[in-house]
């Protein structure tokens, strides 16, 4: 039992890490990865939603009629998104402002709905939580990797601290929209290189 829970958790960290292996949830990874700080904030907020929506969907999996299940999942997810929104507004207001509409948009992040449908609605709560947590942590990691790349190359900083010394000429392209696409594309390419047997 414990083993399978660990397995559900770890698969989100590498074997099915979003959005590289499961090409889902691309928008936030492009939009909020200007700095590692944003990335972590977004990642944790998403992880929170994944975990709790998975938990609730899993608990209600025998109650929700299958015809309206998608609508049900959306409402569950939206509820937790609202919770995250309010919490962040109250405690991390600057981050809340930076992330902007991407917090409410976690609702339409395919990962949340995809995991609810593909996993949580068929598995017991514990495994579902592990799955959600794995996906959440994996997603946060991915966001951080892209965020770290973009922040360090584009601004020369990490968490606001200089990393390359004062002579470094920031590569501002990375911070702009096109840089986000290219950066993500190259990270995906590296993942393919490493991951393909």
């Amino acid at each position: 039992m414990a083993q399978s829970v660990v397995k559900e958790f770890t698969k989100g960290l590498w074997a099915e890490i979003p959005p590289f292996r499961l090409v889902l949830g691309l928008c936030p990874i492009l939009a909020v990865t200007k700095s590692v700080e944003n990335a972590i904030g977004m990642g944790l907020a998403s992880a929170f939603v994944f975990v709790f929506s998975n938990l609730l969907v899993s608990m209600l999996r025998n109650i929700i009629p299958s015809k309206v299940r998608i609508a049900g999942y959306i409402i569950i997810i939206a509820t937790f998104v609202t919770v995250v929104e309010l919490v962040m507004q109250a405690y991390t207001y600057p981050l809340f402002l930076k992330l902007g509409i991407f917090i409410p948009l976690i609702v339409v992040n395919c990962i949340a709905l995809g995991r609810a449908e593909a996993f949580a609605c068929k598995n017991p709560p514990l495994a579902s939580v592990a799955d959600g947590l794995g996906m959440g942590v994996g997603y946060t990691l991915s966001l951080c990797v892209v965020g770290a790349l973009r922040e360090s190359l584009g601004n020369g900083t990490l968490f606001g601290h200089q990393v390359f010394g004062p002579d470094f000429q920031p590569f501002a392209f990375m911070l702009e929209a096109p840089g986000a696409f290219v950066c993500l594309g190259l990270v995906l390419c590296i993942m393919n290189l490493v991951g393909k047997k």
Partner: protein
Amino acid sequence: MGDYIVLAISCILINNILLAQFLGNCPFLGTSKKMETATGMAMAVVFVIVLAGIITWVTELYLLKPLDIEFLRTLSFILIVASLVQFVEMFLKKSIPALYTGLGIFLPLITTNCAVLGVCLINIKEEYSFLEMLVSSFSYSVGYGLALVLFAGIRERIILARVPKPLQDTSIGLVTAGMIAICFFAFKGMV
């Protein structure tokens, strides 16, 4: 009048919802492999975003605001968008089958297209008037369609090139999207 044109240009080109605001990327990469699919999706997006923009704007102004329950915005908007999409799908299927075969199959894809919810939320956030809201919804969605169709055209040609194996598919797609984004980036100096 001039303001509306500036707003439209800004929404279509400068703040292109796909390439500058990063909304609606999953279906963007999914449906851009073929020109045919891309045009269908683009039309469906325009249709739904304008409709959803109107309804959510009305809901916000006449329900959420007076009742002082704006914190329910996310919840109610997603519900409205989802129902709307489903309703439109059923309506088209029965009443205008020709249009349904063109657009209808793309409609479900739009429920989880963050561009729709995104535009609705932007409309509220920017506190647009009704007319501004109409212009922005329409222009944003046209911008989305434009980017999608351009991208599909390029993607159909990518098969001409020898793409290294690890870069194939989504990876090269993202890099290409980056290139288009550079082009759109150039519009920044326009307004």
